[in-house]
């Protein structure tokens, strides 16, 4: 019932890899990490969702907030590795239409580095 977040930088891209549940109580942890990443690395953010098995509206809210932040700075946000249930929630919310989502981390990094 918790969320752990690995933060690293790969080829100039800030990578956040949350693991666990992205819900009402844990979403603020990701929000803080997104804010930190935006402060230090404003161009590109990759959120690797491979370890996230659940997302609620609060989690979606944080991801939408991140997308707005990076969009406003002409930066890029890419998500990858969405599990089936999480993908389903993204689809219902319409997030798949407005966010860049790739299958795995390598594709996402290649995508972000090509643009950089």
């Amino acid at each position: 019932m918790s969320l752990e977040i690995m933060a690293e930088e790969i080829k100039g891209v800030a990578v956040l890899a949350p693991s666990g549940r992205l819900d009402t109580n844990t979403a603020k942890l990701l929000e803080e990490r997104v804010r930190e990443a935006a402060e230090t690395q404003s161009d590109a953010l990759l959120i690797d969702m491979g370890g996230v098995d659940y997302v609620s509206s609060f989690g979606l809210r944080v991801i939408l907030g991140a997308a707005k932040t990076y969009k406003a700075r002409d930066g890029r946000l890419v998500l990858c590795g969405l599990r089936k249930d999480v993908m389903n929630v993204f689809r219902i919310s319409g997030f798949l239409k407005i966010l860049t989502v790739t299958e795995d981390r390598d594709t996402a990094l290649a995508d972000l580095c090509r643009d950089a």
Partner: protein
Amino acid sequence: METRLDIVADLEELPRVIAWTDAFLDGRDPNDGLSGKLHLVAEELVTNVINHGYPPGTNGPIRLSLRAEPGGAVLRIEDEAPLFDPFAGDHTVDTDASVEDRDIGGLGLFLVTEVADRVVYTPLETGNRIEAWFGPEAPEKETNEPNASPAPDDPPEGSSLAWRFAASFFFVFLVSLACATALNFLKFERVFLDTAARQYDSILRDARSAIEGSLGEGLTLASNFSAQVVIDKTVSQHDGAFHLLVQDTAGETLFTDATSAPHAPLPPGLAERMVTEEDGFTRFGDAQGLGVAIVLRQAGEAVGMLALTHDPGAMTAEAERLRGVLLRIALMMLALFAPFIALLSYAVMVPVDRGHRRLSNALSRITGGGDATQNAGPQDEYALLSGARALDAALRDAANGGKA
């Protein structure tokens, strides 16, 4: 199978809620992804009550229950917060909007309505209830939005209630009207006779005044032929509808009107009896003839009596004729209003019939489940659960006045 969980309105309780839904499913997943759906809907609804239901800083109670349905489940959440239907109004989210235009909030309830197969809000006496249905047995998708146009034969509760109230009102009104009419219908003769009696009393009083006024000094009742004139004139004025006669105190008839004999025989000794009594009307007679008599006085002393007799048969005949007319009018009104009454009956009976049908279905399901238990298996368990659930719903609906 049903399980309950009572929590207080605090976000710290959310992990307990999630663990509780997991314990309910116990590793099963009768509906593909039910576990994830239950997590999401339970979290969003509970969070909504905590953040928007109770006033800030108050940790009111939240009661949750989960019950199994064939291939799914029903999650119920009740609180004691001020009445509020979170699904009233427009909660759709523009999923085509760009990142810049997308609102950051409003996704929670949207997800609930999208993920659950049906969501129903019910106001309670003190608080709110939301039921979310999952699975193939869920009734048709609906989030009881007030703007949603109801199916023609399934009006929303308020409207249905108003309909039934109006129908009951009209029904009672029509029955009262029919009863009043029927009673008056039977009372025709009585009404006629009462009216006639009042009229005759007045005629008799006038005739007595005329006769007494003509009894001058030295005249006796027997020698006062003015009395004859008075009674003849009075009877002819009323087309012989009654007869008049004058008797002396010994009971001897002194004058009768010029027509045939009186209809009603006078009771024996009436005149003698009457002179000892106070002034007033003495009534006599039976179904064949009715009469009323009054004492005649000369200088304050009773000298005889004046009697009026009449045949009630004439009035009975008139009542019969009127009754016939009214019966024809009633039949005509019935023919005119029959479609209206039929429509009203339909409006009242449809919800009742629907309730009966649900009950009947529930019972037949239980019967089916009962037979199948001989080869006990998961399917049979669901049949029984489904039957019990349907019966429960039907009884609850009946208690709620047949809410669809």
